[in-house]
């Protein structure tokens, strides 16, 4: 209960835009049970299928529950007509999902690992993103939600660890959303499914079992395109998303011991991203550090950096730091050297603050 009140307090204390958007966010969330990420996503899918009779969940191996158990129990409850396995053809899965969405259904497609999304990249970029635009709003595939586990997991290697979010951030017409914890995931996923635009929802696979939180059992949605300030600070602003936030939190704690007060922001929605929240934070602190697992060159941190420089150039006291993956394919054995670890972030925090 205390945790719920604290969470509510945090929400009230920052941007009043929260109240003008969904009113559900203002109600105190009921006491939830401690569950992990895949259970939260499972609950969200149950609710989504419950509330809309024309919503469908499909993908590879989803019927028995999926390789990460996110879809357990859905077939038993909703039947094989709504929750079904597809053959192994990502391009076909997403194209098929776009067709479903174009005819007014909610298609929740699962791509088993984000590394496998590339055959579907053509359909997502050329069809899903442009459907409404090129048909002059005659048709749209707003009902499309693509869910996919992404990110490093410790032993994934080249093709079970990639973070492809920046490829999709470059496409106007798509939304990209990444949750950091079970409670966020459930609310954000329900928002994504109900959002009238095509959304790619990347789930940090490392957190499927590791991240445990109290999650309300009822139907609630969290607003998209609103970043959240998780931790207030005054010396430097840190931005991240997904699993990287837990690393950033550790770095914040370590920096606090050295007297540096860090403000931590969870971007949540990568496009369209909440520039106002980030800008107001940078105006407060004057320094910015962005961290993500994807390779640094052309990663989404580059977009954040460029936009903030445009908006806050005179306020910045140090170059914007990006602590990201290296510019190599995701390595097999040397994952810990490739990834932006806590020590790298701490080094960069100190270097930036002392600039």
């Amino acid at each position, binding site marked *: 209960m205390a945790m719920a009140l604290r969470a509510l307090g945090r929400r009230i204390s920052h941007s009043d835009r929260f109240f003008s958007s969904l009113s559900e966010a203002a109600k105190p969330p009921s006491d939830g049970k401690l569950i992990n990420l895949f259970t939260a996503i499972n609950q969200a899918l149950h609710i989504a299928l419950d509330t809309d009779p024309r919503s469908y969940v499909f993908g590879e191996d989803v019927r028995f529950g999926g390789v990460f158990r996110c879809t357990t129990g859905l077939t038993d409850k909703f039947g094989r007509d709504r929750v079904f396995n597809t053959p192994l053809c990502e391009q076909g899965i997403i194209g098929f999902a776009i067709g479903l969405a174009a005819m007014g259904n909610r298609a929740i497609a699962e791509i088993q690992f984000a590394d496998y999304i590339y055959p579907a990249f053509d359909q997502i970029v050329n069809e899903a993103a442009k459907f409404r635009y090129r048909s002059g709003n005659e048709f749209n595939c707003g009902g499309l939600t693509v869910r996919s586990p992404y990110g490093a997991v410790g032993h994934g290697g*080249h093709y079970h660890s990639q973070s492809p979010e920046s490829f999709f951030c470059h496409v106007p017409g798509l939304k990209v959303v990444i949750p950091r914890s079970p409670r966020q995931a459930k609310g954000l996923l329900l928002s994504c499914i109900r959002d009238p635009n095509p959304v790619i929802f990347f789930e940090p696979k490392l957190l499927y079992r590791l991240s445990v939180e109290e999650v309300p059992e009822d139907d609630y949605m969290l607003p998209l395109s609103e970043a959240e300030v998780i931790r207030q600070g005054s010396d430097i602003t840190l931005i991240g998303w997904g699993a990287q936030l837990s690393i950033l939190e550790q770095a914040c704690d370590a920096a606090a011991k050295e007297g540096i007060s860090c403000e931590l922001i969870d971007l949540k929605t990568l496009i369209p991203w909440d520039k106002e929240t980030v800008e107001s934070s940078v105006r407060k602190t004057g320094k910015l550090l962005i961290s993500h697992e994807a390779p640094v060159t052309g990663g989404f941190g580059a977009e954040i950096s460029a936009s903030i420089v445009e908006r806050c150039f005179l306020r910045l006291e140090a170059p914007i730091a990006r602590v990201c993956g290296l510019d190599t394919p995701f390595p097999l054995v040397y994952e810990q050297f490739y990834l932006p670890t806590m020590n790298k972030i701490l080094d960069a925090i100190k270097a930036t603050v002392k600039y």
Partner: protein
Amino acid sequence: MSAFSAAKILSPPPFVARFASEKSLCPFLSSPSVPALTRSALRSIRLLRTPLAVSSDVVIGQKPLASSSSATQNEDVDREVALVLYEDMVLGRFFEDMCAQMYYRGKMFGFVHLYNGQEAVSTGFIKLLEARDCVVSTYRDHVHALSKGVAARAVMAELFGKTTGCCRGQGGSMHMFSSTHNLLGGFAFIGEGIPVATGAAFSSKYRHEVLKESNPNGLDVTVAFFGDGTCNNGQFFECLNMAQLWKLPIVFVVENNLWAIGMSHVRATSDPEIWKKGPAFGMPGYHVDGMDVLKVREVAIEAIARARRGDGPTLVECETYRFRGHSLADPDELRKPDEKAHYAARDPIAALKSYILEKNLATESELKVIEEKIDNLIEDAVEFADSSPHPPRSQLLENVFVDPKGFGIGPDGKYRCEDPKFTEGTAQV
């Protein structure tokens, strides 16, 4: 009763001939002796007829006929060949068992997919190939690598992630490559290897026909292995078309083990008989019992000879089964015990062993000697892999581009890859 319920789909009466005489039936073959009219007439006849293929005895209840030259099935192999096959299959089996042990001891990590039960396919095909022939595989590639000739030491070291591995520790379980043995990889992504194999086959044909680098024994053959799930993927169909269009020296081998992680092949495919997709594109399609190495070998002899002659591609569907789960992380709860028992009774190694003993090609003790030899080989491979060094940290940046200096010059005027801070990721770029 076989779990391969396609048996119910095949229509009686059982067919006897194989889809062999492409010259008369295939309209795409430009044979000057066959005028266009006859070709289209033949084509319509062909369309009316059910496509023919060799079937496994599970499906039809008949023994297969594989080649037109030898009408008998299970043509007797001599002792030498039988022992080579036996040794190769035992090597594959023992190696995979050792992999499982090492995995549970934490020596290797990540996603490891074992080949137990499917050895007949790998041995049956790859032991017929020469060093110049290419093999393209999937993530279940350890045994393909071993059959092709990659040393057990190199494969084990690669699994452990050591520098002495066949890919210097950078590939891992799913990416076995060897340029000396023309092993064009393990592919984690299903279907990605098939177009690569098609390109390799094109290269072989080009060298032979255009560059005139002919080998008196014929073209270099490429053999592409992939699973049943892949046969629903677009890349598979694209490559069947291209290979037949350009008459490439390639053999497409489907290792149909009925399951794609948890998805049953029969429930995911509109027509589960994959061999039929060959004739749809104009190439012969075979269905063979993949648990019997001799039957696989017969079909393989024909398919590889076809490719070597320049007659084009072949699609071979091997009905096989994996005894373990999809990967070592798979609890394997979805497959029914009686299905597993059915195939366990058809263990290819046991089948070959009883064949060898029955035909008196070798004694029990000689086979034991082979098994001990393989045991020692594998123990040696594990020791070698254990004692090999881990890759140095500098290897992290190597092989991204040809020139590691592709990372550019840093602000201090030196090559960025030489800057120790570069690997730390404090990207003040």
